[in-house]
């Protein structure tokens, strides 16, 4: 049984979230000079901004901008500015914990290893090797992602390992693999500044990738045009030249009609297609019936706007596309991305400065975390786990027989389904908070309760970890050394600022020690993460994500190296396809046809509105870290529901009123913000919170059949006005640690 051992109130008192507002030692200490500045990168989001952490008395106590780092030149968002407040936090776990009848109790590291090894082995002996699943994450250094994948395949021998990037950009990754043969952003970010047209689809860029803003504003200062496709006006829309308010779940129709116009009006670059691609004839035939009128009816976007967007992209050889979760989080997320890519291939917009189409990867190591073997279908270097040559190569690097490597396993959401069905009995998880981040949270909670053994590695006790039998006390971002890969494809160095406190250990060390307890220590004898990286370089050699020529020293000297980088002397590859060659064996891009289909949770008379979910600038993912940082919580203490005044008026709802959102799965109550910046048939709620305010109570478990991404961005719902919750203050405090007016900031002004 894996229900929480105590009520949420007791767990919250012991493990937070408590809100940290001041650096270690308080502001009184702040004037004392730092002992050192450590050049590293922010722990939040795929921008991976350069930052210097200020260390005093072996604690991270502040930051200093790192203006020399070429991506962000010292720029940071509020998450980056306040990230240091997670260090020396009162909620930081200092020992490993074991569940008892009275709650969690400290347990020694060796006893924890013994317990985990014994229980994992018992489950596998009773139910088979695949009855243990492993969850990883994309906010940790690549060395950990690599060693976790090896741990699952070699130490546990389970096929069931997957990671939370499955909830992030896998639709884009799948589409890029299908079309280009490589899964990476095609251009470095400065290319955005020199494009003539940038199409942003399904990306709240200003809040989720804030540093990208400056590149986009530079583009507009040069006279470039910005097209934004989104059911909401997000902050980046304030300077859009063309805004297309697409109905949730209909991006595909918009892209197909744009290509229809490009074909109809002779804007196709046939020479480029003939020389560098295959498959366009079928794609052209598939858009013949996607007239502007048809698309306007489905998308709710006027035909003239769709036509203008197509003309702008077809009228230049410097057009770029940016997309993110808004088009990827769909049961046709892969199709959405394929259709968007096709716009840029058909117009010859690849392989040059200012021409390309790219995803904005969301998680801190969203790119690197998906390259080296914690995906259920992949081995290091973006190798395929089903390809006999790939299996043989990796087995050789690892020193194990190829036939000992498991085959492809279940994806992240499918693992939770298999736990719910009783097929997977034990779970080992790190860097993942599925109770907040997976769809249909009540289903996730039921599944977690069925586990016979559940162990996590955590540094704060996440809501998911409340269900654990055993919590290893792991390492934070600033306590490890290794690499990440940014949204640009730039491999960067994370430097260790401080040691893990108390009885906390490096996550990688915990994994290796556990492998040793499972009798596989000889495959995990790494003195440090450096030796893991050196093995990773070899494991990636010859693969798609080839890191062989990248060393920690090169990264530091060159301020990052773009993969692929197959040899030590290789300069790296900031821009893909410059010679017209794509990554498929024939060197061509393979255009794919996208068939239209409805979303998996369609509206009807009982659920007539569209619910879409997303993020706010001051919170990161499931909030495990950022919901503990006071100034970030003050900025967005709770989820607010955005709705249009025409919808609000029907229900007599004003800003600040309480609304119940009901979907086919659950209901959530939150306060309204009535704004004209969202479609009247759509409501929006951000997803960073747990418990009763979890947006993912509402979302559904329909997956894209190829990428296995859940359809977070469109659910059918209804709304009604309700009185404020009777126990409001209590549940605010329990679930968010926040009390209105409690911040240490008293002032009066104009």
């Amino acid at each position: 049984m894996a229900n929480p051992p105590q009520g949420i109130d007791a767990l919250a008192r012991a493990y937070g979230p408590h809100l940290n507002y001041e650096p270690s030692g308080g502001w009184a200490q702040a004037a004392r000079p730092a002992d050192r500045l450590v050049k590293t990168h922010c722990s939040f989001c795929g921008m991976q901004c350069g930052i210097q952490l200020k260390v005093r008395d072996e604690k991270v106590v502040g930051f200093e901008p790192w203006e020399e780092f070429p991506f962000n030149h010292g720029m940071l968002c509020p998450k980056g500015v306040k990230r240091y407040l997670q260090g020396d936090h009162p909620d930081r776990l200092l020992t490993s914990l074991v569940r008892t009848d009275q709650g969690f109790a400290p347990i020694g590291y060796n006893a924890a290893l013994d317990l985990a090894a014994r229980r994992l082995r018992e489950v596998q002996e009773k139910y088979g090797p695949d009855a243990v699943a492993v969850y990883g994450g994309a906010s940790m250094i690549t060395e950990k992602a690599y060693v976790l994948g090896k741990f699952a395949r070699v130490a546990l021998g389970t096929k069931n390992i997957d990671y939370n990037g499955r909830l992030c950009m896998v639709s884009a990754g799948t589409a890029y693999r299908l079309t280009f043969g490589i899964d990476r952003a095609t251009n470095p970010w400065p290319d955005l500044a020199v494009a003539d047209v940038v199409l942003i689809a399904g990306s709240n860029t200003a809040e989720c990738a804030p540093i990208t803003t400056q590149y986009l504003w530079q583009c507009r200062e040069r006279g470039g045009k910005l097209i934004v496709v989104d059911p909401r006006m997000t902050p980046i829309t304030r300077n859009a030249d063309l805004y297309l308010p697409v109905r949730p779940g209909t991006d595909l129709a918009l892209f197909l009609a744009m290509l229809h116009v490009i074909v109809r009006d002779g804007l196709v670059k046939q020479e480029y297609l003939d020389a560098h691609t295959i498959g366009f004839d079928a794609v052209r035939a598939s858009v013949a019936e996607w007239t502007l009128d048809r698309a306007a009816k489905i998308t709710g976007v006027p035909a003239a706007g769709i036509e203008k967007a197509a003309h702008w992209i077809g009228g230049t050889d410097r057009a770029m596309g940016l997309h993110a979760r808004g088009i990827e989080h769909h049961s046709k997320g892969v199709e959405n991305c394929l259709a968007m890519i096709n716009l840029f291939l058909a117009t010859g917009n690849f392989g040059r400065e200012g021409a390309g189409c790219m995803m904005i990867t969301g998680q801190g190591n969203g790119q690197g975390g998906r390259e080296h073997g914690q995906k259920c279908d992949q081995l290091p270097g973006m190798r395929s786990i089903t390809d006999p040559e790939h299996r043989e190569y990796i087995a050789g690097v690892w020193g194990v027989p190829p036939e000992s490597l498991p085959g492809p396993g279940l994806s992240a959401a499918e693992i939770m389904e298999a736990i719910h069905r009783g097929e997977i009995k034990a779970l080992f998880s790190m860097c993942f908070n599925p109770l907040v981040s997976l769809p249909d949270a009540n289903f996730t909670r039921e599944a977690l309760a069925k586990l016979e053994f559940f162990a996590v590695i955590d540094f704060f006790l996440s809501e998911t970890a409340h269900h654990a039998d055993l919590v290893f006390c792991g390492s934070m971002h600033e306590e490890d050394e290794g690499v990440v890969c940014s949204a640009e494809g730039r491999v960067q160095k994370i430097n260790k600022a401080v040691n893990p406190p108390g009885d906390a250990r490096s996550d990688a060390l915990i994994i290796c020690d556990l492998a040793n307890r499972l009798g596989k220590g000889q495959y995990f004898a790494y003195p440090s993460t450096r030796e893991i990286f050196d093995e990773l370089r070899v494991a990636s050699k010859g693969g798609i994500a080839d890191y062989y020529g990248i060393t920690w020293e090169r990264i530091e000297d060159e301020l990052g190296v773009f993969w692929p980088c197959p040899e030590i002397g290789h300069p790296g590859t900031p821009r893909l396809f410059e010679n017209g060659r794509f990554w498929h064996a024939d060197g061509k891009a393979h255009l794919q046809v996208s068939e239209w289909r409805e979303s998996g949770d369609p509206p009807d008379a009982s659920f007539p509105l569209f619910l879409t979910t997303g993020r706010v600038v001051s919170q990161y993912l499931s909030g495990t870290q950022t919901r503990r940082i006071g100034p970030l919580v003050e900025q967005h203490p709770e989820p607010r529901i955005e709705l249009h005044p025409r919808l609000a008026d029907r229900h007599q709802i004003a800003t600040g009123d309480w609304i119940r959102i009901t979907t086919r799965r659950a209901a959530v109550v939150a306060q309204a913000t009535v704004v004209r910046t969202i479609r009247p048939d759509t409501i929006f709620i951000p997803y960073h919170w747990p418990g009763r305010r979890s947006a993912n109570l509402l979302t559904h478990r329909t997956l894209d059949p190829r990428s296995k991404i859940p359809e977070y961005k469109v659910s059918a719902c209804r709304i009604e006005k309700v009185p404020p919750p009777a126990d409001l203050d209590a549940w605010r405090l329990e679930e968010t640690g926040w009390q209105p007016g409690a911040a240490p900031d008293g002032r009066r002004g104009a």
Partner: protein
Amino acid sequence: MNDGYEFFVDPSRCIGCRACVAACAECDTHRGVSMIHVDYIDRPNSIATSPTVCMHCVEPACALVCPADAIKQGEDGIVRSALKPRCIACSNCVLACPFGVPTVHIGPELMMKCDMCYDRTSAGLRPMCATVCPSQALTFGPAAVVARQRQAVPTRDFRFGAQHVKTKVFMMTAASAPVLAADVEDYMQKGPDGHEDWIIDEASLG
């Protein structure tokens, strides 16, 4: 170093992220408290936000109305926070400032405002807010570079009715740009009756 650098505010670039607010509060002289305001202009109708920083007036109204002579202007033109021994927290400056910048802090009973990160600028660094600002709505750099890279036009002359205020800080003003309508409905497909095209008419629920 930063000789010849000037401070520019371009509200049209602001994305409301409040990185400036967060960064300002890190300053050693006013720990945990920000001297910058970021406001929605009109949230019900628009996503537009705007940062407000001290404009460092050439003839600062805050200093002119201070009965305790607590607000000083340096030779560099920077108007400093109130001197702690002199400030009587009367709020005259709060009321007088045409830009709404100073705030009086209840705890220390002290008016505090931006001094353009004197600790940083005097050491050749840029002010913290303009360093971190992801949209560069707040920028600190050479005027010639800003003129080359931006379409908006800098100004430091302001008229508030009869009052003419000159400032050290520049405000970027739109050269000429069409105004984007603010209501999503204005961009949506209209049905045959001119009504916006909802997929299902919620009113039919009764």
